[in-house]
């Protein structure tokens, strides 16, 4: 039964992605038309420059220019009615056909938006997943401790810190951390992914990257785990009031094994998925964070594209970000369905 749920969930995810791309396409329709238009004119002018060097008849050049622009406009459906333009733009986006950047280049000098974005993805995922794992480990551990001693000093103080951190911008904390640990007490690099020049050996390179990852990860984890702990505490505390816990206690099972054996086992699925879900929500926050640490990921790309006003890169990056985000949610739902027998047997998708 699980595979049927899984297939339905994945199809739903694909459907939602398609709908969102259509929404984007409608939202950004005019802007993209302008960008495409100027790109076409630029491209055709370039072609004519080359032909005029060969010595082609000027009248033919004029005619060629008009014809070529018409062809390209046709290719990008620029003369079609607005609804059809929106449709074609969405189809292009769905097939990863994001076009070319206006200013930015990939690390290898390519102008294809897809290439610029693709080389950033691993960096973002590397930083983010490492932070997630550490974050959840600390968060769940602290949450259990809090639930165990609910209402005591430790629980109260950490809860207050949680609320203090609640509205704290992670990127601001990053700025302060850089100021403290990269300039005032220089123990960490201030940003980037590798030293300049990077180490030559593979092992040295890995170590160097880890060293550069340390400060952003410390910052992300420090901002993140409080909320995780609070969430865990609430879920575990809710379960501790269930009847089977009462009966376990009544049977004289030690408190420790009641907590870890009974309460944590039933709390695990919601803790895991809710932690992952809220972390996924912090994914977009972490994007801005990358700019502060000049980490060459997708977030930094937003930053740079905004500065250079490179609209195709912004939109391409947005489409891919959305794809990753939705995939994340679908995967989490699949895990949740796998862990939760009620869904596994065939509940509502």
């Amino acid at each position, binding site marked *: 039964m699980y595979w049927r749920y899984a297939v339905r969930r994945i199809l*739903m*995810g694909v459907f*939602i*992605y398609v*709908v*969102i791309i259509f*929404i984007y396409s409608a*939202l*950004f329709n005019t*802007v993209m038309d302008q960008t495409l238009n100027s790109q076409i004119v630029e491209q055709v002018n370039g072609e004519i420059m080359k032909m005029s060097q060969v010595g082609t008849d000027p009248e033919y050049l004029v005619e060629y220019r008009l014809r070529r622009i018409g062809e390209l406009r046709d290719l990008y459906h620029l003369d079609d009615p607005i609804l059809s333009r929106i449709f074609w733009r969405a189809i292009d986006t769905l097939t990863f056909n994001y076009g070319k950047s206006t200013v930015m280049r990939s690390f290898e000098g390519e102008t294809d938006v897809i290439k610029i974005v693709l080389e950033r993805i691993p960096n973002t995922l590397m930083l983010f997943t490492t932070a997630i794992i550490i974050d959840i480990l600390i968060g769940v551990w602290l949450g259990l401790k809090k639930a165990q001693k*609910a*209402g005591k000093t430790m629980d109260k103080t950490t*809860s*207050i810190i949680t*609320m*203090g*951190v*609640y*509205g*704290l*911008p992670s*990127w*601001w*904390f990053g*700025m*302060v951390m*850089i*100021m403290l640990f990269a*300039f*005032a007490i220089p123990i960490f690099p*201030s940003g980037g992914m590798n030293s300049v020049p990077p180490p030559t050996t593979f092992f040295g390179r890995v170590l160097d990257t880890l060293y550069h990852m340390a400060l952003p990860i410390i910052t992300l984890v420090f901002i993140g785990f409080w909320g995780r702990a609070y969430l865990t505490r*609430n879920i575990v*505390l*809710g379960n*501790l*009031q269930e009847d089977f816990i009462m009966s376990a206690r009544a049977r004289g099972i030690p408190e420790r094994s009641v907590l870890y054996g009974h309460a944590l086992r039933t709390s695990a699925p919601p803790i895991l998925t809710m932690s992952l879900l809220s972390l996924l929500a912090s*994914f*977009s*926050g972490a*994007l*801005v964070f990358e*700019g*502060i640490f000049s980490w060459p990921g997708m977030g930094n790309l*937003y*930053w740079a*594209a*905004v*500065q250079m*006003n490179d*609209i195709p890169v*912004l*939109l391409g*990056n*947005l489409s891919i*970000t*959305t794809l990753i*985000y*939705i995939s994340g*949610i679908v995967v989490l739902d699949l895990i949740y369905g796998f862990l939760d027998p009620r869904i596994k047997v065939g509940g509502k998708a």
Partner: protein
Amino acid sequence: MNKTNLVAKQLKDFWNEFKQVKFGIAGIILLILFIILVIFESFLTPFPEASTRWRDITYWEDNPRSVPPVWINWFSQKDYTPTEYIEDLEYTEQNISGPISILNSVIEYQYDYDVPPVDLIYRGNFKGNFSLNIVLERPDGNKINLVTKSFSANTEKDFRISLINESGNNVRSFARRYVQNLPPRVNINTVLFSQTDGELFSNPTPLNGTYKLNINLMKLTEETVIEDTRLVVSGSVSGWLGTDNSKRDVWSGLLAGIKWALFIGLMTSAISVSIGVIYGVVSAYYGGIVDSIMQRIWEVFINIPLLPVLIVLSAIFSPSIWSLILMMSLFFWVGPVKTVRSMALQIKEETYVEAAKALGASHRRIIFRHMIPILIPYSFASMALSVPSAILYEATVSLLGLGDATIVTWGQILHDAMNGGAVTNGLWWWVVPPGIAIALVGMTFAFLGFAMDTILNPKLRTR
């Protein structure tokens, strides 16, 4: 029971319980504090127009650039000169001959610090012709002719003289009397406020005492008017939170940002939570196909990564604060929908809703008069909890330089700090306070929201 009475009773009970939660009370106190700061904003800042003229460089030109706050004097070994405004200068007028008359004023300035001010600025309004001469008499008896300059204008004009800039040559020749070889770059203000010994340049000792600034204004025509003169000691520390690299007072900017933070946060959360609650109730109330469609729409919205969308939208359409609030509301409403829907499904089955239906009440009446009021406490909790994220999102969009340039927000101050190299140069007074302000407002509403949450879910309190 009467419906309004029921709601009133519910709110009263809620308040009675709320009073029990300590951090809830702390939240209310903090909120009142912020509101007081907003109301008395113009009295609490030396720059009442900070909010409207934040990007007007002429408004800030007398301040020193990138200097720390005044209270660092309490912690540092050396005392820094704070910025001072000496206004309402009094002049004695003396007629010389015919239309020419001389105005004279002596300003006594007590210098008890170790680090000299950055500049001395003399300024005012004038019309007509006059010439100006300012002589500084130091505590050790030395007199230095700082500046001699003439002005003429047919209409009323501002004049502004930076004494440190204008007196360069005079001060250099004064220093040459004591030190043979001047270094290539002479720090004029250090020379003016230090003892004239051999170590004037290598290791200057501050010369404390009363400095007399002798200002002579010679009016050349009878119609000449000189008004509104003042002396600004542009200190080496300034204001409660220092200044940024555009000479702006950070404290004034921070104060001006409170109202925008509250406005953005409350407005966004009020709009979005209202939409979300109505959406959830409607979805639950009608059920069936309506519910299915509404839930699918909700699912689409929940799958949009908000921050990147906001960044791209702001980058392309360069929005005002209003459209930013609107855009955020457009994505924020999804938050309360699921919980509201599940609560509404229960309320729907209550007997009084059934009774209202039996009596022939309209759908709208049932939804707005009977169902939504029950959800008010929950709505407040969820509004309070979504205020910090709205502030955070605005700050983040502003950090990228995409904010509304007609107002001052904390995010924009941090954007300027980021661009102005505050992090690399260690200008902590420019980076730390705006972030703490964001965190404090966030904490205020988190206190309120979590307190309400605790009451609404009594399970969470203790075991």
